[in-house]
């Protein structure tokens, strides 16, 4: 079964210099295991190809059912230097929620 992260997560993103971070939070504890397995550094790097120019780091926060992604070199220089409409990466959260993953058909949602 193909689902969007939007179906099982919520998220918030923001800036740290020219890096952005996205907190990806599972709506239920059982969904945390799904995102932990599927939303890998490699997948996120590929998903943001052309947007994130640097490396992607992933951190696990099982207590909060959440993953934190640090996207380096993602904001066109960051701060007041960036020419982007979304200079602070505020909408990168929903861009990540667009990601589709393939999960077992038997998974209860």
């Amino acid at each position, binding site marked *: 079964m193909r689902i969007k992260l939007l179906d099982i997560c919520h998220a918030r993103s923001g*800036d*740290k210099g020219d890096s952005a971070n996205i*907190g990806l939070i599972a709506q239920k504890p059982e969904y945390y295991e799904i995102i932990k397995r599927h939303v890998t550094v490699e997948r996120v790097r590929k998903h943001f190809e052309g947007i994130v120019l640097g490396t992607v780091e992933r951190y696990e*926060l099982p207590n909060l059912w959440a993953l934190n992604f640090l996207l380096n070199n993602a904001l066109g220089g960051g701060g007041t230097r960036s020419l982007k409409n979304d200079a602070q990466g505020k909408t990168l959260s929903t*861009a990540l929620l667009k990601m589709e993953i393939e999960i077992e058909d038997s998974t209860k949602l």
Partner: protein
Amino acid sequence: MKDCIRVASGQGFWGDLPNAPIDQVTKGPIDYLMMDFLAEVTMSIMQKQKKRNPELGYAKDLVTIIDQILPICVEKNIKIITDGGGANPRACRDAVFACARKHGIKGLKIGTVCGDDILLRLDAFRKKGLAFTNLETGESFEQIGHKILSANVYFGAMPIVRALRQGAQIVITGRTTDTGLALAPMIHEFGWKKNDWDKLAAGTVAGHILECGGQASGGNFSGDWRSVPDLARIGFPIAEAYRNGKIVITKHEETGGMVNMQTVKEQLLYEIGDPRSYITPDCVADFTSIHVADDGNNRVRISGVKGRPATDTYKVSMSYLDGYTAFGTLTYAWPDALEKAEAADAILRTRLADLGLVYEEIRSEFLGFNSCHGPLADATRDVNEVVLRVGVRSHEHKAVEGFGKEIAPLILTGPPSVTGFAGGRPKPSEVIAYWPALMQKQHVTPRVIVKGV
């Protein structure tokens, strides 16, 4: 001695909801009101204001807010803690004293925390061998050392605690960590020790949840955002802190918004890096240790927070002038809105090139099509309208100014069905770049002064 205090968030940034601090002091019980005014590059603006007029260089909005809430804060014994002193906490204090006199308030004690401003000491520090290497990029300070506009150390909670111990009812600081503003009253009221790392970390986590105001109580909530009640009258978050380090995040009854596990978690993850090491001058908090539980009725319990000893360095935030930018927008309408906007963009770029104007970057975005999410946007080209937004950046002021003159002419000399040019010619604004660094704590000492009238 109290076993529980209520610390309320009044402003999440300079320019936040003007009514929020008034609601916090009138709509229910609180003990402390914290207000954050300083973004990363705000200090450079304040330094400039102070240079022009030694009585300025702080957040004037803070004085406007205090003017509205001071009588009630005095009556209810609510203490105010804020970093709105910016580059000039003492001038800010004097403005607040003037405000107190106006209201006929006597015996008010205000504390200031200074010593964070190291701009004039940079050369001396460098002679001592301090490197100020860029914390994020690793770049050498040499290349920008001569153009620094502001340089401030982030102090933590301790200087504020000292002011509170001396009886200050209002504490006005320069550069301070946002979390320190909320942690200080807990240390003061509960007598937490300098090495109570878990408790200091719990208070720091509370500060992180409070520091962006309404973002913890239903604002910018990406979950079921439609379910957030009455955002028009959003109540800002309040941290109910207990002596044992337990924290409950809540808000006043009879206000809009909501506090639940999801709104709190989103804020916990906001603008953090490695969650195991959330570093402040007071402690290192481990965000992976946090337990969050929903008690219902807009109450969320935070427990289990683990902390580690503080590092021996302060973070220094510096700013410098790094060229100019300007932005212009035009709106194109159906038919072929996007194609017209793209054509206009190409014409503009040709004209800029013909004029010999050179930029480090020209960026064109199509708002309504894909300015958010870029290649990930499932956008159809058949949009009814699109906003062309062009930004340029250059170290040549002239080039950026020249760009401004080329936007409006596109209306009569470019593709048709164009509108939305309001607000005049785009003006160059300064790029105030940010330079974060670390320095050993031993080199700077916070100066705490408490004065009364």
